[in-house]
């Protein structure tokens, strides 16, 4: 079994789906010849040719809008948006058309599309390069939203996303593109969308996170080792649809719930998950559910970003508070 980074695992998923299914096309700004600014698509154009792996003009609405036409006319587009913040000029198509076409036409046109882009902070980048957009996209009926946290999950989730009959927003936590390696099976495999994963079992507090933040929670758990607090860590993996069952089963066991997100606080997934827990596991709760989030501000540039991001210390402090509530 090869040991791959998250970035390599995504490349392998694209490669294997392109080999398996001629309808799959991969494109975006600098995605073809160069292999993307992060090199996620490196080598694909050489292997599959310019018609199936190509560079586009810098025009995000054309990237997302053309995906709709391509999907209707027989292709499976996997379009790349270069950075999270650049999705906004393409949001018009994602929100007003892509998410709605199946419903608008009462099933005449379903859209098998994947829109991939790097998300989140932690690489000391320019403005618009560090955004966590799961709230905005998770809020749109008709879209599925996925964020992997490990190389193994990234490959299996992306394969499922490409095979999904509906549009999937595939968010890639750029901070951990190359941060760690993991054994990833060479063969193609699938991880179902909408299923969370229990990363570590525990009995005192349920903590839910996703993407790069799963690792931050793991760091927080190390800080808590001496406090004798047993954390059950769940990686949500899919923002929409939500795997309520895995979360509720855990909360019914621990009675305590903390959700951690890098996205800004208000109306975020944390609020949604807490609402689900309150509504469906209220009598099992022994503490007020809590969230650790980015603040309701514009993501600061490099010199200020650490105040905004959810650091292990801040996560650990909240877990402690919730455990001792």
């Amino acid at each position: 079994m090869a040991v791959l980074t998250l970035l390599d695992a995504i490349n392998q998923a694209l490669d294997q789906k392109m080999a398996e299914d001629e309808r799959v096309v991969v494109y975006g700004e600098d995605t073809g010849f160069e292999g993307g600014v992060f090199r996620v698509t490196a080598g694909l154009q050489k292997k599959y040719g310019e018609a199936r792996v190509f560079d586009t003009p810098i025009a995000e609405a054309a990237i997302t809008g053309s995906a709709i036409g391509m999907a209707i006319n027989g292709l499976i587009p996997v379009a790349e948006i270069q950075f999270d913040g650049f999705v906004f000029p393409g949001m018009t198509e994602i929100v007003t058309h892509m998410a709605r076409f199946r419903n608008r036409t009462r099933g005449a046109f379903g859209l098998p599309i994947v829109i991939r882009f790097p998300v989140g902070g932690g690489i000391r980048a320019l403005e618009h390069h560090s955004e966590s957009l799961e709230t905005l996209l998770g809020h749109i009926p008709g879209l599925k939203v996925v964020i992997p946290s490990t190389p193994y999950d990234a490959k299996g989730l992306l394969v499922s996303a490409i095979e999904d009959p509906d549009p999937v927003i595939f968010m890639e936590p750029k901070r951990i593109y190359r941060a760690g390696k993991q054994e990833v099976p060479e063969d193609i495999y699938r991880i179902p969308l909408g299923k969370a994963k229990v990363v570590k079992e525990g009995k005192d507090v349920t903590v839910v996170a996703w993407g790069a933040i799963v690792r931050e929670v793991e760091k927080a758990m190390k800080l808590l080792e001496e406090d004798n607090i047993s954390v059950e860590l769940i990686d949500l993996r899919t923002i929409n649809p939500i795997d309520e069952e895995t979360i509720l089963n855990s909360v019914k066991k621990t009675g305590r719930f903390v959700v951690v997100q890098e996205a800004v606080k208000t109306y975020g997934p944390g609020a949604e998950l807490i609402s689900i827990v309150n509504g469906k596991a209220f009598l099992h709760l022994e503490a007020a559910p809590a969230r650790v989030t980015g603040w309701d501000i514009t993501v600061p540039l490099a010199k200020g970003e650490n105040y905004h991001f959810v650091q292990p210390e801040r996560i650990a402090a909240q877990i402690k508070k919730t455990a001792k509530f």
Partner: protein
Amino acid sequence: MLFKDYDPLKKKQLQILDPKGKIVNPDLEPKIKKEELLKMYKTMALGRVADIKALQYQRQGRMLTYPPNKGQEATQVGAISALEPTDWLSPAFRELNMFLYRGVSLETLYLYWYGNEWGNHMPKDSYVLPVNVIIGSQVTHAAGLAYASKVLKKNQVALATIGDGGTSHGEFYEGLNFAASYDAPLVVVIQNNQYAISTPRKKATKAETLAQKAVAFGIPGIQVDGNDILAMYVATKTAAEHARSGKGPVLIEAVTYRLGAHTTSDDPTIYRSNDEVAEWEKKDPLIRFKKYLIDKGYWSEEEDKKLEEENNTFVGESFKNVEKTGDADLLDIFKYTYKEMTSQLEEQYQEMKSFLEKGGK
């Protein structure tokens, strides 16, 4: 040759059939078979009646907001009839006659404006996308249809229609530029009906013509008398051949006029004069096409009268059938958000269903 002769920077407009129904450009008169010409005319005639009656139904409170097509029939039918039946149409929302020509039933089309998404459930073999309300965005969809046609060697052209107002929108530029970059087989027809709701064309762009915008994309453009069905047919046919042969997109500006309101919510008397409308009524595309057909011996006033009566009855019956459909089914509004309902949606559906079953308690 056509695109060279009518280079938009030469400020010429293609016309073959003048407002009086005379052929003014005999070299370019297309050889269209009688049956085809009659299909074109009958589509326009049905469209005209359906349009006028839709307005009446809306005024009677039986139909919701509706965007009239009156005056733009030649632009629409001339363009769509020049395509192969498997070429795609990516429309905006004022293309009633194009849908009809492609065999989408009037009941289906009315159903949409009656307030039911089943009116956008286009038959698979019609190769038309649904009504698109977001201005300009259909051009990028068409660019994608065209790109897929090219990669999968389907030999299809994608035709996008857009209003003059739509050419102010970013996706008009992004979509055409995208398709042109790959020589994808895209044709864009601008239905220049002179107004973006109330804003006249001249206030929306400094460009002298909309056709000349083609120059910047590096593609052919042509300005056409949009009330002349023969000119629209010839321009679109030539454009589709150009695109299909791998040479890339073409931009057609059809100069026409919306004789009705923007939608049933609009009052055009606020922003344009009766004299102006009267001038354009003289250029009515149906009058000149009928004259052409009669002169050719393909049609007569008697047949025309009979057709109008038939259309009146047919449209009336179609709308009655639509009114029988009533409210949407509860499951319908949940069921098509995804191929399979998510557990969250299933739960919400059950909640609403049981609320209704308990009599709303």
